[in-house]
C-alpha cells in the first residue's frame, strides 16, 4: 500500500511523531489567531522555506500536494475582490495554504508506524478501563490489506461488465462489489475464529 510519507529522508523523519503533532496543533491555533496580512505572508513564506530545506524533489512533491487547494484559493480571491475586501481574502487564502502545507509536512515526514504509535499511546487510558485496543490495531491492518484487494476485485467486475456490454459499468457494479466485500468479511471472521478469535 502506498503511503503519503515522503521517500526523501529528511531530518524531521527522526523527530518523535507526538511532538510534531503537538507543534502542528499550536501552529494552526496561532494561524487562526492572527489577522494581519503581513504576518500571514511571513508564515506562508516560512512554511515554503521548510519545504525547500530538504531539497528540490521534496519541494516539488509538497507543492504538488498543495495544488489541490487552487479552486478554493481562486474562489476566495475572486469573491473578495468582487466584494471590495481583497485584504481579508488574502488573509483567508494564505492562512488556508499555510495550515494545509504545515499539516501535509507532518504527514510527509512521519511513517505510518510512528503515527500508529501515537494512536497506541492515546488509547492507553482506554486500556486502563479494560477495553482491548488490540482489535483496533487489527482493524487498521485489515483495512490497509483489504483496500487494494477490494480495488482489484472492483476492477475485475468492471472488466467483466465491459466484456458483456458496450456501455460503461458505472454504479451497477457497486451492488455486486458490496456483496464481495460482505463475503470477504464473513470469511475473514471465520478464519479469525478458527485461529482462536480475538
Amino acid at each position: 500500500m502506498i503511503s503519503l510519507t515522503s521517500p526523501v529522508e529528511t531530518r524531521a523523519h527522526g523527530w518523535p511523531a507526538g511532538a510534531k503533532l503537538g507543534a502542528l496543533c499550536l501552529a494552526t491555533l496561532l494561524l487562526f489567531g492572527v489577522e494581519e496580512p503581513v504576518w500571514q505572508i511571513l508564515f506562508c513564506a516560512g512554511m515554503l522555506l521548510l519545504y525547500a530545506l530538504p531539497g528540490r524533489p521534496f519541494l516539488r512533491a509538497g507543492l504538488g500536494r498543495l495544488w489541490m487547494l487552487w479552486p478554493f484559493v481562486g474562489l476566495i480571491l475572486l469573491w473578495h475582490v468582487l466584494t471590495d475586501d481583497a485584504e481579508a481574502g488574502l488573509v483567508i487564502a494564505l492562512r488556508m495554504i499555510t495550515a494545509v502545507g504545515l499539516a501535509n509536512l507532518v504527514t510527509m515526514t512521519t511513517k505510518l508506524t510512528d503515527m500508529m504509535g501515537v494512536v497506541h499511546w492515546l488509547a492507553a487510558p482506554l486500556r486502563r478501563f479494560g477495553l482491548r485496543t488490540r482489535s483496533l490495531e487489527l482493524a487498521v491492518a485489515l483495512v490497509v490489506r483489504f483496500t487494494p484487494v477490494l480495488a482489484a476485485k472492483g476492477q475485475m467486475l468492471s472488466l467483466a461488465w465491459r466484456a458483456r456490454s458496450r456501455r460503461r459499468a458505472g454504479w451497477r457494479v457497486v451492488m455486486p462489489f458490496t456483496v464481495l466485500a460482505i463475503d470477504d468479511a464473513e470469511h475473514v471472521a471465520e478464519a479469525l475464529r478458527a485461529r482462536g478469535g480475538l
Partner: protein
Amino acid sequence: MERNLTMIALFAALIAALGLIPKFTLGFGVPITAQSLGVMLCGTVLGAWRGGLAALLFVALVALGLPLLAGGRGGLGVFASPTVGFLVGFPIGAFVTGFIMDQWRSAPVGLAAGVSAVLGGILVVYAFGIFGMMMTLNKTLVEATLLVQAFIPGDLIKAVLAGFITSGLAKARPASLLSRS
C-alpha cells in the same frame, strides 16, 4: 465479535475502494465520486454503531496519512482544508443513516435505506461540511451553503442508488444486512 470487527474493517476498505472508481461527471460539469455512496452504505447495511465505526476508521486512516480519499488525497492536510467538515461528518452521517434504518423497520428496505441515506448521508454530512467551510473560509451560513449546493444533486442520486443497492443486498445476503437483524 470477530464478525463485527471484519465487517467494520471491510466496509472502511469499501469506502476507500469506491474512491478509486473513476469519477463520473454530472450534466452540468460537477464531478461526483462514489466515496460518499460508501458512507451511506455503511449506515444502511451495518446499522448505526457498526456503520459509524466503519466510517470513523476510514477517516482515522486518512488522518494517519493513507491516500484513501478520491484522487489519492489524504494526510493531515485534508483536515486543515475547506472540505474538512465533510470528512468529520462522514462517521456521524453514517451513524444517523444506520439509526434511522434501525428504527424504521416497518418500511420496505429500499425505501428506508433511501430516506435514511438522504437524512444521514446528505443532511447531516452537509451540515458539518457547511460548518467546516464557514470556519476555514470565514463565510456566513448562506455563503457557505451557496458554495456546496452544486454537489447536492449528485448526492441525491447517490442516496437513491444506496436505496436500490441495499434492497438488492437484502435479497442477495439477507443474513448480512446487520441494520435489520
